[in-house]
């Protein structure tokens, strides 16, 4: 891939809304991505392989659990910092951002919020340092948008729980050391269980032939009479609200992340449009190309403001799930549209691995589906404003 010339657009001087610390967090991540992700990512995506070696770097810069308190190995940063880290990592690649999101919001977050002190001490420092990688098992082969219908379940066998069932589409599954698994107890109530690699009856086959998020590993979690020690149940929250709480945190990060992917596509297309000459002029001089570029920067700017405001609400613990849904839906859709338009601006070059755009476009097809599909988020907003449930 050509060298990373990325310059971040800031059309409304939003930098003035950030603190010096936020900017340092962002620039640090941006530099790290330029140095460690951009030079290698195209190769790994082409090979459909997760660049395992970068988990060490992600941990070192602090991308695993940025908002988790320092005493558990996190950095204790605020939510805007977390968002900016996700934005910059996804500017590099949505798959790498997925790994960081899952580790922070879907694995460390539930252990921190729903776990007991022993569980926090046991898992969080290992996850923050990248010594362990985690995954999050909610989706099942027959239950995607409707997780409440899950069939994975556990029975109380006195000194342990017996877990059975299967999860599908699980990011990081093929190599995760620990899985946060959502399963129903004998009364049909959903609980989180910490299932470790090596437990008998637990396997994690890899999902092959993806055209999207190729640099992120996806797999299944299969539980065939797995004996899970009783101390591995997350005690402090149960019910569907528990996994949904994790999703709120991850979706919030995705809302920021999508801006990163969009910025990268826009920046690439803008530069290309000034350099590519057709009919004796740079193509950026043609109105049709300007329309695309002008609409892109407008949409990016709107998304930046939306997300910044959401970050303030999140810092004050006031962001609602529905507000987060709106930002996730809007921003991912915006990014996917920009990726498609930007790809056209590059003509034939746009389909090659010389540029990041096609990779972003393909990645965003997953991002618009996972963590609540584009449709489901619309139904969440619909329910929120009408009070009428259109899910079922």
């Amino acid at each position, binding site marked *: 891939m050509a060298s990373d010339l990325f310059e971040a657009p800031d059309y409304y001087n939003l930098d003035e809304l950030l603190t010096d*610390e936020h*900017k*340092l967090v962002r620039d640090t991540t941006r530099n790290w991505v330029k*140095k460690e992700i951009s030079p290698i990512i195209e190769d790994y995506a082409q090979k459909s392989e997760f660049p395992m070696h970068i988990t060490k770097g992600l941990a070192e810069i*602090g*991308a695993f659990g940025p908002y988790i308190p320092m005493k558990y190995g996190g950095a204790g940063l605020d939510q805007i910092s977390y968002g900016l880290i996700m934005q910059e990592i996804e500017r590099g690649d949505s798959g790498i951002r997925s790994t960081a999101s899952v580790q922070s919001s879907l694995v460390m977050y539930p252990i921190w919020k729903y776990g007991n002190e022993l569980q926090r001490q046991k898992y969080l420092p290992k996850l923050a340092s990248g010594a362990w990688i985690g995954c999050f098992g909610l989706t099942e082969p027959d239950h995607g948008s409707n997780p409440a219908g899950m069939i994975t379940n556990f029975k109380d066998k006195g000194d342990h729980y017996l877990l059975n069932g299967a999860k599908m589409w699980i990011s990081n599954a093929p190599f995760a050391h620990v899985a946060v698994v959502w399963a129903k107890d004998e009364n049909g109530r959903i609980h989180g269980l910490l299932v470790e690699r090596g437990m008998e009856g637990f396997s994690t086959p890899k999902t092959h032939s993806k055209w999207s998020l190729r640099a992120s590993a996806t797999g299944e979690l299969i539980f065939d009479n797995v004996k899970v020690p009783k101390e591995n149940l997350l005690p402090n929250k149960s019910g569907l609200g528990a996994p949904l709480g994790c999703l709120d945190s991850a979706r919030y990060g995705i809302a920021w992340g999508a801006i990163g992917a969009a910025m990268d596509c826009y920046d690439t297309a803008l530069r290309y449009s000034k350099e590519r000459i057709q009919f004796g002029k740079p193509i950026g001089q043609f109105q049709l190309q300007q329309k695309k570029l002008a609409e892109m920067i407008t949409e990016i700017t709107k998304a930046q403001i939306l997300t910044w405001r959401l970050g303030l609400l999140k810092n004050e613990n006031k962001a609602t799930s529905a507000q987060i849904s709106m930002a996730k839906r809007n921003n991912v859709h915006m990014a996917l549209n920009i990726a498609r338009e930007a790809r056209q601006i590059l003509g034939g070059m746009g389909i090659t691995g010389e540029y990041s755009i096609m990779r972003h476009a393909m990645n965003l097809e997953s991002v618009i589906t996972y963590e609540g599909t584009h449709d489901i988020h619309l139904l969440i907003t619909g329910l929120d404003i009408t009070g009428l449930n259109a899910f079922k």
Partner: protein
Amino acid sequence: MKILVCISHVPDTTSKINFTEGDTKFDTNGVQFVINPNDEFGLTRAMWFKEKQGANVTVINVGGADTEPTLRKALAIGADAAIRVNTVPADGFSVAKQLATVIKDGAYDLVIAGRESIDYNGGMVPGMIAGLVGANFVNNCIGLEVEGTNAKVIREIDGGKETVSTNLPLVIGGQKGLVEETDLRIPNMRGIMMARKKPLTVVEPSSISGETSSMSFEKPAPKGAVTLVSADNLDELVSLLHNEAKVI
């Protein structure tokens, strides 16, 4: 060992350079500022002394409040404390005098400055500080080791290297080679959080004013268009060089 690393706050090398106020002031609009690269090599070497020899590292900048993010970044990378001398630098000599005051008060053993800053490229401050505080001085350093009060310094000379033996207190003008580019550190999130608790002391300048001031700046003339002359048309080339470029 008490180390003071002088940190200059300079425009990123990719910045577009413009001047305002009738070409008398540098236009900072839209410019990203970074730690002066030569100082960053020095800071990274200082981190080595901190980690391997227990040195205490303070960073210093002479500048306005707008330079504080650069000092915070140095703290996030690992420096123990920061000092900002609250005055907008006028020229190299006045900066050196401000630094010398702090160095004398703080009794630093080793002062690591950059060989030059990449904004105005004066390259005078380190030598001047050494003169003002009466310390030893080695410029263009590409290697530095300290054992007790003895220092071994490697200096770049034309086409080669010179190894110098000297004593603390010492001032060096450092550059790439003190550490390599791959050794440079990006601060991490924990470092950024810890930097919050580290002292950044603002000291008022001693009453020294600059003896020089900029009257105007001028940018090099923009590059003209390229004229291609075919290899068999030497007469045209000669005529262009003579009549248009006026170089022969």
